[in-house]
């Protein structure tokens, strides 16, 4: 038994201020095993693994790797011990080359007689990239020149190049396209085959079940159970996570109910060099229009373009008859468009401001009477708005960075609802959000729909698209490559066929 265990965690504890993030977790991870780790938002998965990877120090508890006592001081140290992790948030160093990013913390590796051997570094970096069949990345060029996904892949290389005994992957798949995921899965299996272990964190239970040998479930910082993936169903997992049975799926149940024929938004020949070409479509009142595709298909740019933040777009966007300037956020907002961006950390919310400010920010013109803006009024307004989506918080003066991803997303939606927007553009609205919060967001969409709001949902999760939208448009390198109307027997395969 003993030699079977790769990593052993003994009674780990971690608290942040008032929150018990990880509360006495003991865990064994065997050699050559792929271990899934699931749990609701804030259940402690990231925190637990961050401690294993040396990003956080446990308050108490001990760890061993292959029986050897193990207490990592920092990430590089953990790497030396054979543990590496890909974290939830983007974790690359801007303004430095790809190669430097891959080897940061391991420079001494390339010091031969006192000199830093750049050539060797570039060569080796290149090798790793090729080894993982990641193309289109120049190791010498600046990391800023690459997209979020490419940067994640580079982090992947950084984590993999040390041939770790334990590889931890925290909610990474959400930012990866199908192709990127394929690479990730390949890496995971390779690691397994070479007798090493993998911990895989994701909210996509299906993915977890397909990929992993066994699954550990966490709730409120405590370990609920570790079960074999075989013969496990998603619903079983969900009920383990939530602690009670969940019946049915959380998607809309209604089918074939016809939406109004009144066009609220008409897009004609939207062009955006290298991202979109000649995209035309219309959005009807009370319709949920889904956009699907690979992450590079341009669907995210489409969202930005509609909101006026995409650069050098051309084409016309007509709102209830009148054409609007597609280069002005102001005008987009004035004409009732609300946009929920994919990048929650920087674009959606002001993390180091309180909930109050984040909600009121869009509603100043309503709140300010003449030259007077009443703080009390502001507070009450924010309070009642926050209550609408019952955001989990102490009070509206809590800072947003202290909120869980799910609650952050609620705040983002609130700020547009508060403004009374009637056209919503939601980019990856449920990314990295747990099942419960997901369900409530879907219900919310339906309510909004019924209130006559028109909603555009951009998502990489096809089931979600099928589940919520009345109509689905698939984008493929900048063009609309397929249209599907809501129906029971619409399958992922149908969509995928248009995507690639």
């Amino acid at each position, binding site marked *: 038994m003993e030699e079977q265990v790769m990593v052993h965690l003994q009674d780990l504890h971690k608290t942040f201020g008032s929150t018990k993030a990880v509360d006495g977790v003991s865990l064994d991870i065997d050699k050559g095993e792929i271990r899934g780790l699931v749990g609701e938002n804030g259940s402690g998965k990231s925190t637990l693994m961050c401690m294993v990877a040396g990003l956080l120090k446990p308050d108490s508890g001990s760890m061993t790797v292959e029986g050897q006592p193990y207490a990592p001081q920092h990430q590089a*140290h953990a790497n030396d011990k054979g543990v590496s992790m890909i974290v939830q948030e983007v974790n690359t160093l801007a303004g430095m080359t790809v190669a430097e990013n891959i080897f*940061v913390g391991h420079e001494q590796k390339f010091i031969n007689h006192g000199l830093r051997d750049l050539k060797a570094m570039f060569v080796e970096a290149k090798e790793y990239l090729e080894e993982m069949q990641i193309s289109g990345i120049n190791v010498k060029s600046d990391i800023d020149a690459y997209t979020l996904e490419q940067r994640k892949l580079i982090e992947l290389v950084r984590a993999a190049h040390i041939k770790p005994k334990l590889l931890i992957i925290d909610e990474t798949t959400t930012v990866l396209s199908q192709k990127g995921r394929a690479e990730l899965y390949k890496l995971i299996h390779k690691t397994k085959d070479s007798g090493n272990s993998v911990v895989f964190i994701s909210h996509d239970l299906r993915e977890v079940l397909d990929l992993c040998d066994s699954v550990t479930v966490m709730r409120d910082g405590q370990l609920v159970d570790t079960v074999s993936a075989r013969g496990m169903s998603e619903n079983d997992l969900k009920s383990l996570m939530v602690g009670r049975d969940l019946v049915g799926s959380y998607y809309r149940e209604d089918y074939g109910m016809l939406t109004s024929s009144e066009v609220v938004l008409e897009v004609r020949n939207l062009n955006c060099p290298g991202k979109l070409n000649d995209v035309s479509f219309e959005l009807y009142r009370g319709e949920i229009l889904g956009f699907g595709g690979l992450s590079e298909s341009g669907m995210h740019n489409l969202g930005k373009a509609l909101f006026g933040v995409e650069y050098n777009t051309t084409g016309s966007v007509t709102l209830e008859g009148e054409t609007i300037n597609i280069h002005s956020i102001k005008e987009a907002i004035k004409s009732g468009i609300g946009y929920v961006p994919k990048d929650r950390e920087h674009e959606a919310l002001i993390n180091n401001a309180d909930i109050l400010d984040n909600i009121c920010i869009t509603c100043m013109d309503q709140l300010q009477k003449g030259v007077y803006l009443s703080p009390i009024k502001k507070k009450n307004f924010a309070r009642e708005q926050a209550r609408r989506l019952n955001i989990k918080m102490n009070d509206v003066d809590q800072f947003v960075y202290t909120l869980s991803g799910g609650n952050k997303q609620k705040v983002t939606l609130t700020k547009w609802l508060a403004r009374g927007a009637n056209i919503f553009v939601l980019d990856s609205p449920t990314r990295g959000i747990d099942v419960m919060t997901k369900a409530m967001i879907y219900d919310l969409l339906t309510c909004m729909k019924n209130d006559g709001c028109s909603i555009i949902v951009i998502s990489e999760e096809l089931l979600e698209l099928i589940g919520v939208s009345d109509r689905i448009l698939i984008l493929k390198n900048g063009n609309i490559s397929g249209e599907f109307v809501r129906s029971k027997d619409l399958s992922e395969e149908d969509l995928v066929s248009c995507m690639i």
Partner: protein
Amino acid sequence: MNKLKKGMVLVGALVITYVVFKILQPSRFGSLSSMFILLQQCMISVIMAYGTYFLLEMGAFDMTLGANAILSAIVGCRLSVIFGLPGLLIGALITGACLGLVNGIMTSKIKAPSMIISVGLVIIYESLGLVVMGGGSTLRIDSQFRGLGMAPWSIVISLMIAAIIFFLDRYTCFGVHVNAIGSSEPIARSMGININKTKITAFLISGVCAALMGVVNLCYNTTISAATNLSSTTTVFQPLMACMIGLAFKKHMNPIVAILLGSFFLALLQNGLLTNGLESSMQNIFVGVALLVVIKVTSNPRRYDVIK
């Protein structure tokens, strides 16, 4: 291509400036000898510019460099009377290193941005300079050391510094770590980079450079006098500007070269204006404009880019 073009901007600016002034003042401006004098002068100020390089890379600012240069020079000058050349160099360098160390420790240990701390420190260093000065108002360096401030040596010294900085930047972990910290301190820390050590080292280097510049400058001017009321900070701005130019071109040419070109450009500009009989007040105006132009040319931000 674009990369090259951007790089040429700096050289182009130099050439154009030269040509314009040459046309305006054919007889007075731009003789070989005067250009050589100019080179000597900017070789001195560039030492400090190199000192600030790593700091700017980390996004740190050190306003004490001017005061540091003066204090170190004073100490060196006093010691040179007793111990000769070793006294001058070692005394000054050790002083500079100590001050740099203090700045480094302060900025890495104290919860406050470097620029603001350093402003506080300037006041202290300046008054220390007065104390060391010991009543007198100006010190004069023995003429035997004047060589240090002139053609072969001053240039040799600053080229040496340039080489060292280049080496550190390109061929040591330190260079990478500085860059990493400048890019994101938390990530750098999580990668096991020793933030404090790196910071302190960077400040140490800048301190030493400042001291060296002080010495060379002293040997060039032969006299040194203490500064008061933050007046020493004015000496920081020119090297700072040169270094910023260097960083601005980082992506297009070797920063070490760019810094040198940058400081020579500034010197050329002022010299040109001087020979056109413009007072230094007027020269300020031009330097201001030049600064603006340089940043504008080197930057091409996009809509919604965040620039503070």
